[in-house]
């Protein structure tokens, strides 16, 4: 009985501490920098899971420590065996099994299914008529971004490096393909790449021979210069150039975006 009470107290203290720790970590922004609504969804999902799991983690950790200290064999004890011998405890096992099933069902309903639901919705065609469309082509080992709605065939900065500009508070539809624009006839040259912008909270693999889509909703003005997580990064190993497959991203106001478009068009016609 005493053990149960002591343990319960320790467990509660441990849970509170952990809740506080997780909360603090979340406040601090430990989970990626977030600049899109999709990224915020992910942040909420992590916070939710950790909040629910804190007592569970605390239970196991406190249990391990408590057992280790409280039930250790003492020096000079001649009798090796424990006095308490039991094979089972229906209540404990029953609660354990039910709680673990319950928690998993909960996590499946929320955040897994609920967040996915939201994602599916955001991908429905009727909601995406106004989207800014960006054609993304990955070749070994380079990104190409083109904006068909604006006639920009390959967005570049002053140095000729690929760069991605997006207006804030817009739905963006990325059209993802993997091929080599200069060697389209070579079927062996296409490999799988991964299109990832850490600050946007999701990634999508790009499969040679297929077209894939990724949708985000930009939510703050930011750029690679503000936070290095605002970058395009290839995440699927694609050969020796894989680490170099990155490109800066700029999320700018609608006005700035128009200015940028004009500049690009001018650059292109020169």
């Amino acid at each position: 009985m005493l053990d149960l009470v002591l343990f319960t107290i320790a467990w509660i203290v441990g849970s509170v501490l952990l809740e506080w720790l997780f909360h603090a970590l979340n406040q601090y922004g430990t989970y990626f920098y977030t600049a899109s609504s999709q990224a915020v969804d992910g942040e909420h999902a992590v916070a939710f899971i950790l909040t629910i799991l804190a007592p569970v983690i605390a239970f196991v950790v406190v249990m391990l420590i408590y057992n280790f200290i409280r039930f250790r064999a003492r020096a000079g004890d001649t009798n090796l065996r424990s006095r308490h011998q039991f094979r089972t405890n229906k209540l404990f096992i029953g609660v354990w099994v039910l709680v673990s099933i319950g928690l998993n069902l909960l996590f499946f309903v929320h955040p897994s299914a609920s967040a996915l639901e939201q994602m599916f919705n955001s991908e429905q065609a009727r909601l995406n008529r106004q989207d800014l469309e960006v054609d993304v082509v990955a070749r070994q080992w380079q990104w190409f971004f083109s904006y068909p709605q604006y006639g920009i065939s390959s967005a570049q900065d002053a140095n000729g490096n690929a760069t991605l500009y997006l207006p804030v508070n817009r739905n963006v539809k990325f059209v993802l393909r993997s091929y080599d624009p200069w060697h389209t006839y070579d079927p062996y040259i296409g490999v799988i790449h991964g299109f990832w912008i850490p600050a946007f909270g999701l990634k999508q693999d790009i499969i040679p021979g297929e077209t894939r889509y990724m949708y985000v909703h930009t939510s703050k003005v930011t750029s690679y210069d503000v936070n290095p997580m605002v970058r395009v990064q290839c995440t699927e190993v694609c050969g020796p150039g894989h680490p170099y497959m990155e490109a800066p991203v700029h999320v700018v106001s609608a006005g700035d975006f128009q200015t940028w478009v004009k500049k690009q068009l001018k650059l292109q016609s020169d």
Partner: protein
Amino acid sequence: MSSTFAGTSESFLRKGRRMLPPVVRGLFWAAIGFFVVNTLVSQALDRTPFAPYVTKVSVTFGWAAATCGWLLGLGAWELVVRPYFGKPVEWEVPNDWRRYFMMSLDHKVVGLQYMVSSVSGFFIAGLAAMLMRLELMNSSLWTFPTPNAYLSTVGIHGTIMMFSFGTVMLVSGFGNYLIPLMIGSNSSAFPRVSAISQWLLPAGIITVALSPILGTWTTGWRGYAPLAEQDPNGIVFYYLGVFAMTLSSLLVSINLTATILFKRAKGLTWNRIPMYAWGILAASLLNIIWIPEIEMTFILALVSNVASLPLFAQIGTPLTYMEVFWLFGHPEVYIVVVPAFALWQEFLPVMGQKTLFGRAWGVLGLVFVMMFSGLVWAHHMFTNMRDDQMLPFSFFTEMISIPTGFAFLTSIGTVWKSKLRLTTPTLLVFMSMFNFLIGGVTGVMLADPVINLQAHDTFFVVGHFHYTIIGAMVFTFMAAAYYWLPKFSGRMYSEFWGKVGAIWVFVAFNCAFGQFLLIGLRGMNRWVPVYPPYLRNMNFEISLFAFLLGLGFLFNLVHIVWMWRYGKPAKANPWNAKTLEWQSTAMPGETNFNPPPEVLTGFYDYSDEQPVWKPESPVEVS
């Protein structure tokens, strides 16, 4: 027929038949096999322009010939080929150190051979990890000459760790040594099978470790097509090496499954089967199903690579390799951890001298994990599948944490109110449970698609799987090494240095891999020797802890090897355990049980002092 045999028995007694030492003979035959076949293929059968001596095709056949030569030289000639032609089996194994350098039919010798091969694999791959961490101390290329060299090192690290250590140590190493002992048998079911399979393992390790000689490869441990199709010949050695290593595990699994089902001592009924045997049974069944699957996949990739078929290229089906790889890949991780779970349930009752809690739930957990493991593979592929396919895989992935939790349930229930001896194995099991808890929590997070799409292919995932593999498997392996050291060597380790080693590894591990998780959340992606400079400081620090971890493993190795030779002599049953392996004092080369034991009760009940076994009364004395 009997006369045939009586006739040949004369020749048995021919003494001093001269023969090269088997390892030398194996190397020699392997070299001959390679040169003959490679020359034949590259210079005659499949001559290409300029006739380079080594081509993708020739090296494949040359390797196969070399491996056959290696196995034949080590004893398969006497044990398999001569009997195949009807000649009697004649194989002499000197009863001294030399028995470790040839095929042996003693499961204890085979177990030790496996352990040594496997630990060598661990340290070779560990060295690769140290080199990787050295490179990552700087955000630009400085340790390796090219990104390719780094990527090959990642691949070698992952491949050798998984296929020569993770999958092998607890199943083929400890399993071969201990399973026959624990079920009261004098031998495994098919001793020749394990004798042969052991020697495939070093062949595989060497093949993968030396693969860069043929050219660096970039795919990582998955060897995944279509990228692999661009790689130079090194990738061929990846496929071949992994093929050898997995074949080794497959053969052992068939042998151990048959052993557990058929070689049990009298009275060792189904409900008395040791927990470790359950773990091995579950892992073996996974091996038997999934290893042939992945081997066929490797062959498909190898053939389409060597013959340059467009199977997985853009005009073929580029995602299929990944799919069939992960179809195996996920069960693979349970092959790694299930025996570890079983070992928790093996050690804790002994160390606490208390009856195992909820034994049926423990077994159920192992079996359900095994069955679920085939249903979750696509969670490795959320970033390249259709949306509606995500939910079922997410569901099963989350559900698999339930049977996994049973391992915690039984362990915690067992130590509650026990009299826990705080020995090094106990400490390591507790550390292992803590680490796996973190692995499990990060796993539940990754099962959630929204989080997965963000964290996939970052160091968060790398941290997660090292927490599960090192956390659960390596720590438990260390516990097992200390626990059974007195059994293997007859000597005891030093409790003080054992604990120092455990705490050292635990602290270094958590400091290094805890930060893997965090740096992943800051945008560090995988397979990169070069990364944006803002990640440098954290990487630098992680590397320091990684080196500390590497030294910690080395320290434990030195401690164990030292005590193996110079430790204090141990009692026959130092932990006062009830399981059968402690009831035999047989060393390699000796009979385990003579006469065979008869089991009287289960092994995990510490409530009474009744003997668990008695010698089986001899049926008739001849």
